[in-house]
């Protein structure tokens, strides 16, 4: 189905964030900043053993703290109903599946008192020997049926072994990375209040409808009796995509105590309690002809999940889309360990998988004696390799070429370790990016009354992306009115139901429903000759039918991009620093150039952190992540990002949605780490295949090379 885009003046413009002033002046309220009368404060008690079970919880000392209200344990906490996500099954039994699991909840009149109470709760455990260390030959590894996102766990096309065995140019390399943490600036927080059997929560979440639908059966309520508000959210990066324990704990504590309860997870609890990107060990084998054209590709992923539930980082999935590969094997094997449960983190699968694949492509380019951009050009597939579907649009080569031009790529001497400034080795690297186009059905409503603005209602979530503003732009163009004639309400389950902000799908999903509702309203208005009747006009939209058709689309739909990096490596200290980072993205129509730019460079910044800085150590003895704060878990600082540029290509793809957009929240992180890693190789002549590229690793590598 081909569509023509609305081409109004609002979309594409750098509209400023509608809530920007409220945020910078502090009037925008986040989940923990709502204080119903009589509110109490909750503080979780995290398990201090790696695995086992709780045998006794001593609460008397805690209850004698001034201001103490209650201690919830698995013995006295309200019983929960059905739950499809076992990480929410808190305080229901005595098991301790991993360190950091919530084993009690202190509730007090003040947060300080709750904290003191939590410290005074004494828990006795029966402990078991933990299994916490992932290895490529862990005996517990099994091939999963499905990886995250519904991708089939393992897939083979053609005959990889035979083709690889006879390929004249071969790469066989294994790439390793530890866990990464989302660590949004706003911790996971919730304020819960019960009134006459109805539950209202302010939750720091990426999707209030999702939270509502999860909470209702947990607490045995009809969905209508649960209201979830996520009006402003200070980042999530996937860690707030589905409900996390804080909202269940707050609601339980409020029910148990009969008071509204506020809970913000302490930063030190977050690494273990709210998900993370799982560690991966990725083996990539590429077999190619002398011309560099790939004949055999294997991407085999080993990763871990917890014993609470299976979550498999789908790192081998992008290899099913990226390059010509007549013979291909993409597999995921996972071991369930006594460790915290991994989950979504910005571009799950693509961020980790494209680090390995794009690093291997760089190795192949060198082995084949080709420029890395040219290698990718030669391996451009005509159709999506796994599905055989044509791409709705694919501008990978254009992005690579535009990036190469802007970056000055061809000015480099391709020989490794060929550029030196004093004690610094300088290098450049490139990698491709990709992210699928995802969309989910959504509802929306548009209404107007005489003399009023147009009011748009949709339970979208703005986690800092600019979604609120972009949706107002969509509405303005669909209504054919200036932006200031639109008022938009998002972030509450009392609004028309909508999917969560995740998978870079929010704007497309919500926007489609907003566009549809607004066009319907305009049509209604036309019926009245443009005069709003006294009773006002309302139009509602539901894109279920459109999305059902979409699922049967004959096209493969993905965004693509190219990342270029210049790094310096200090030969004395082993410090690798990025000098320049440049990304070019082809991601459909860009709906707001200001917020889109922020999304791209935000993703690239996170990719830089993944490449060079963000180190998390799973303590094998204690079974938790040793780095528990932002002083020890190093996200990039401004000094790490001297020059960053994000550009995008015009992309007119009529097969997407009425806005022609693809989604931009995640592609910025994809490929960044590989581009930086490839630049470090070019600088040093040493292949480092383990992230992050901390000075100790680089020094060791430089030592080996001389």
């Amino acid at each position: 189905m081909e569509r023509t885009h609305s081409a109004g003046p609002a979309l594409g413009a750098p509209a400023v964030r509608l809530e920007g002033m409220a945020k910078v002046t502090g009037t925008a309220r986040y989940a923990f900043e709502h204080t119903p009368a009589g509110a109490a404060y909750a503080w979780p008690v995290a398990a201090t053993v790696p695995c086992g079970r709780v045998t006794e919880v001593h609460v008397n000392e805690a209850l004698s703290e001034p201001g103490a209200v209650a201690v919830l344990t698995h013995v006295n906490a309200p019983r929960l109903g059905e739950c499809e996500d076992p990480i929410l099954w808190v305080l229901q039994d005595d098991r301790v599946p991993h360190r950091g699991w919530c084993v009690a909840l202190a509730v007090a009149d003040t947060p300080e008192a709750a904290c003191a109470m939590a410290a005074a709760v004494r828990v006795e455990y029966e402990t078991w020997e933990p299994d916490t260390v992932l290895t490529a030959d862990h005996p517990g590894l099994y091939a999963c049926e499905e990886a995250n996102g519904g991708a089939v766990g393992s897939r083979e096309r053609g005959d990889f072994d035979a083709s690889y065995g006879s390929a004249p140019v071969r790469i066989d390399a294994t790439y390793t990375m530890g866990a990464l943490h989302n660590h949004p600036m706003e911790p996971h927080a919730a304020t819960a209040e019960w009134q006459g059997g109805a539950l209202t929560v302010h939750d720091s979440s990426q999707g209030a409808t999702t939270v509502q639908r999860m909470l209702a059966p947990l607490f045995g309520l009809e969905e209508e009796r649960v209201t979830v508000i996520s009006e402003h959210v200070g980042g999530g990066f996937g860690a707030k995509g589905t409900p996390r324990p804080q909202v269940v704990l707050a609601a339980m504590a409020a029910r148990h105590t009969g008071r509204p309860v506020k809970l913000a997870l302490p930063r030190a609890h977050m690494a273990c309690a709210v998900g993370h990107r799982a560690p991966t060990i990725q083996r990539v084998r590429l077999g190619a002809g002398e011309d560099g054209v790939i004949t055999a590709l294997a991407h085999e992923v080993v990763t871990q999940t917890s014993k609470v539930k299976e979550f498999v980082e789908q790192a081998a999935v992008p290899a099913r889309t990226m390059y010509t590969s007549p013979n291909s094997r993409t597999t995921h094997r996972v071991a369930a360990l006594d460790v915290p449960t991994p989950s979504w983190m910005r571009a799950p699968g693509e961020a980790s998988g494209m680090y390995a694949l794009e690093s291997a492509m760089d190795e192949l380019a060198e082995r084949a004696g080709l420029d890395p951009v040219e290698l990718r050009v030669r391996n451009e597939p005509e159709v999506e390799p796994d599905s055989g579907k044509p791409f709705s649009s694919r501008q990978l080569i254009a992005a690579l070429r535009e990036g190469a031009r802007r970056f000055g790529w061809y000015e480099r001497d391709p020989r490794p370790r060929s550029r030196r400034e004093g004690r610094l080795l300088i290098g450049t690297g490139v990698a491709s990016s990709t992210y699928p186009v995802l969309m989910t059905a959504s509802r929306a409503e548009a209404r107007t009354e005489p003399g009023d603005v147009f009011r748009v209602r949709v339970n979208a979530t703005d986690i800092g992306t600019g979604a609120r503003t972009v949706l107002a732009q969509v509405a303005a163009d669909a209504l054919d009115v200036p932006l200031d004639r639109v008022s938009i309400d998002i972030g509450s389950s009392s609004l028309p139901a909508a999917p969560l902000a995740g998978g870079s799908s929010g704007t497309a999903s919500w926007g489609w429903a907003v566009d549809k509702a607004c066009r319907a309203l305009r049509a209604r208005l036309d019926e009245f000759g443009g005069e709003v009747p006294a009773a006002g006009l309302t139009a509602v939209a539901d894109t279920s039918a459109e999305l059902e058709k979409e699922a049967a689309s004959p096209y493969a739909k993905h965004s693509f991009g190219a990342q270029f990096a210049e790094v310096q490596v200090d030969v004395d200290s082993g410090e690798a620093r990025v000098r320049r980072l440049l990304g070019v993205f082809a991601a459909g129509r860009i709906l707001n150039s200001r917020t889109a730019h922020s999304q791209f460079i935000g993703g690239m910044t996170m990719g830089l952190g993944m490449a060079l800085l963000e180190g998390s150590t799973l303590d094998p003895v204690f079974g938790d992540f040793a780095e528990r704060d932002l002083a020890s878990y190093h996200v990039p600082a401004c000094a790490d990002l001297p020059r960053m540029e994000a550009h995008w290509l015009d992309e007119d793809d009529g097969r997407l949605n009425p806005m022609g957009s693809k989604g931009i929240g995640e592609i910025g992180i994809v490929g960044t780490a590989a581009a930086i890693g490839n630049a470090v190789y070019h600088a040093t002549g040493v292949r480092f295949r383990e992230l992050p590229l901390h000075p100790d690793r680089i020094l060791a590598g430089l030592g080996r090379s001389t």
Partner: protein
Amino acid sequence: MKSFSYVRPSDVDTAIAAVAADPAGSYLGGGTNLVDLMKLGVAAPGLLVDVSGLPLTEVTPTPEGGLSVGANVRNSDLAAHPLVRARYPALSQALLAGASGQLRNAATTGGNLLQRTRCLYFQDVGKPCNKREPGTGCPAREGVHRDLAVLGHSAHCVATHPSDMAVALAALDAAVRLRGPDESERTVPVTDFHRLPGDSPERDTVLEHGELITAVELPAPAPGRSAYRKARDRASYAFALVSVAAALDVRGGTVRSARLAFGGLAHKPWRARAAEEALVGAEATEESFGRAADAELSAAEPLRDNAFKVELARNLAVRVLASLAAPGGPDAPAAGPAPGARPPGPNSGS
């Protein structure tokens, strides 16, 4: 958080008397570390005596040609002080290499010396730590210890001291001025102020309960030049993996005097006396700088995952000494190598 009392006296002896009288009393400076530790449950003072109102805020030239730095002088002010920049560049550079701009604005000279280790086990009350709870054990020795000590550690503790400033002070022969109850005063060289862990890692310094740091005294600058260099994971707001402070006087190609201290290697700023001994009278060449560093670092006993610190310390020492010996002057940047912004030093093209 445990409740505590708080007072903010305006004269030194009242403050000292208050802490001396209360075994659970503690001084509060800029609060950039102690308040965090209180939130984490690592520190639980019953009484906080806020010394930020005490008149210890001046940087005063001494008759001997040195400087006396009041304990309340903020790190950012000290780093920017013209006399510090001109005469003790290693100190200014070390200060600017530490923490973040916001923290430097709050942190004080006295408080900086008294900050606690950032060992991850020390900061997690859910895990054993001999420094936090003597006798509970040191999981870092076999656990996560990439950032921890390679010199002077003990079976009981492998923590490092986190200060950048103290490393420069150790190299510059600074001393800590202490005042105790009953108006007692003493001066302790910075090199003797912090302790090695031995079997009592809970004690970071030789400070007695109730004693207050009133000033840090810098002697007249030694001949030659000084510089500080720090290697770290992140370009700012990260503790040193290894740092080096050095002052070097070279004449006619021969080292006349040398002062060298390492950070990130030990429970205290590590004054490298063996290296200094090897340097004096030696030729000012990279080879002899390397030999001098080796003389010091041969005592290192790295743990499983931190042997890189020995090589890193050697490399940084050679580089800083070479930059100080070079005719053009030190190229050690003030706040670590700013990516892309580092001016080519005299060693460029080597």
